[in-house]
């Protein structure tokens, strides 16, 4: 279970202008995340939906302890991420935006390496790699070096690597980026299975900017725009709230209406 309350984060960035002059560029504050709220229960797939630059990746990076939050609280299975980040990480499997593999290692070695870093024994990690390879249909890839892997093959390996320690919470940052239809379908099937009691009743948080993904997969949706949670609910609930038939229309209403009225639609 993952709970995020009133999360905020701002960055300082040079504001351009006299960049090459002797005058030092003035620092500009970018409010990446203003007020993100999310509740993702176990056994459900929660979609984090938002346009590009809405603050999805920043939110997930904060959840993974990569950057400290300015304000707000994040709890993973009641463990506070700010106070005990390592314990929280042990309970999470994160497929981040960056999913680089080690090209000179085989897929199996890549997966087992992360298992070892999560504190698993070698045999245990190896057995787990086999199980995951079965689940993602990548058995033939397991002992090949990842050097020549296709996008889909890389993605499968990275996902297996993130799930090697069988975490109760799975966080996926735009996992379908660069995947073809078949690979996307396979991934969707795997996630559905992981949600069931047989698959471990995982708590799955899934960030995307693609409507269809959300419609097909998510039990509940959190819509984020301009660093703020603007709506929460199931797909039918959000449709009802906006009075739209089409989810895309509903999303546009929810995510972009705020540009006119800063107060936004209250969830």
């Amino acid at each position, binding site marked *: 279970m993952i709970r995020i309350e009133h999360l905020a984060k701002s960055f300082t960035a040079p504001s351009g202008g006299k960049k090459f002059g002797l005058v030092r560029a003035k620092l500009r504050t970018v409010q990446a995340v203003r007020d993100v709220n999310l509740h993702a229960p176990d056994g459900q797939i929660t979609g984090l939906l938002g346009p590009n630059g809405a603050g999805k990746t920043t939110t997930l*990076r904060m959840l*993974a*302890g*990569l*950057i400290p939050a300015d304000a707000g609280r994040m709890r993973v299975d009641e463990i506070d991420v700010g106070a005990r*980040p*390592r*314990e929280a*990480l*042990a309970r*999470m499997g*994160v*497929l*981040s*935006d*960056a*999913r*680089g*593999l*080690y*090209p*000179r*290692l085989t897929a199996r*070695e890549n997966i087992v*390496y*992360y298992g*070892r*870093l*999560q*504190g698993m024994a070698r045999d245990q990690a190896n057995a787990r790699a086999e199980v995951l390879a079965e689940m993602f249909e990548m058995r033939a890839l397991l002992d090949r070096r990842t050097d020549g892997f296709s996008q889909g093959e890389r993605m499968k390996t*990275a996902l297996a*690597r*993130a799930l090697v320690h069988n975490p109760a919470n799975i966080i996926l940052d735009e996992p379908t980026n660069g995947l073809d239809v078949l690979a996307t379908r396979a991934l969707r099937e795997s996630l559905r299975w992981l949600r069931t009691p047989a698959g471990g009743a995982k708590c799955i948080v899934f960030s995307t900017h693609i409507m269809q993904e959300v419609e097909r997969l998510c039990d509940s949706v959190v819509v984020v725009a301009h660093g703020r949670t603007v709506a929460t609910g199931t797909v039918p609930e959000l449709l009802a709230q906006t009075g739209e038939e089409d989810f895309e229309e509903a999303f546009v209403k929810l995510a972009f209406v705020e540009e006119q009225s800063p107060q936004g639609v209250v969830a």
Partner: protein
Amino acid sequence: MTRLRTILTIYRKEIVDALRDRRTLLTVLATSVLMGPLVLLAISGLVATLEANAEQREVVVAGIERAPTLVNFFERQTYTVKPAPADYEQQLRKAKLADAVVVVPTDFEAALVRGDAPIVEVVSDSANQRSQASAGRVARLLSGFSRERATLTLALRGVSPDAVEPVRLEERDLASTQTRATQITGMLPFFVLMAVLTGALNAALDTTAGERERGSLEPLLMNPAERWVLVLGKWGAVASVGMLIAVLACFSFLPGQWLLRSDTLAAMFQYGVREVMLFLVVLLPFAAAASALLMAVAIRCKTFKEAQASTTVVMLAASLLPLINVFSLGEESPWYLWVPALAQNVLMTHVLKGEAFDAAQLAAPMLVCAVLAAGGVWFVSRTLRSAAVR
């Protein structure tokens, strides 16, 4: 306990990764490990030609026909007399002629009989090193001739030859054979130092900037291992690669030595297992420190290429600092031992000279290396997180 296991996990992975990078590894081995012995061979070839030159008992004389007495003396000293070419001055300047030329004046014999002390010139070009070397030899030969003439004249008049030589001159050279050899083998420590640096460079870049470029640093930090644990494992692996190259480079001079063509050099260049061990005592801490330093420079770079450009500064410093020892012409200041790369160069030169160094001399460079290594590891751990997300 779990931390130690994590360090070992990372260490093992990085070593496997580095060893699988065959092409880079082979290049490093070829350039750093083979370079030293090849240079040694080249030097030995040079020394061998110089020796061959010295052994040739030849005198080049301009105007032989004017000085039969002199030619007779040269031949009695088992020298072969060769006539000088007409344009000997030109040839000496262009370094075509390797011997100094003895120029005999026209009325040499007559002046000699009269006791007028004819002037004999020894012509050489100080920019032409080989002619310079033979000039000294020829000058000694000529003064031998003078002495013989003087002794004969005095003996005819019943005077003891000792009367004209009240003081006898004898030279004594304090340098041991090994000390003399370091004039030639002095560049060896430099090659070994560069080998260690180039060996560690690739691994250092791959584990830092390379990891950023691949996008694998961010997922790596999403494991519940502490950052300093990650860095310690990585640093250990990089340092091990550097140390491996150090060991290979040091041992590579052993077979290189057997190939020496010059007997004199082979006799002077005493490099055995003891010297290898002393070299390693100096080099292994250096490898550890250099690895940490290279990693600290590289972690700030987004790409491998950028990191290569940044680490050039480190490489340049490490290759220029030992020159201080060369330019100071053998006079060492105590602060040398506090400068990395320079200190290692000084100590290895001591080893080659056959001199021992004590623990006190080793303490300063060891301390500097420890501080550099700790500082580097600390800096990388501190920068790791911000490096991952940017």
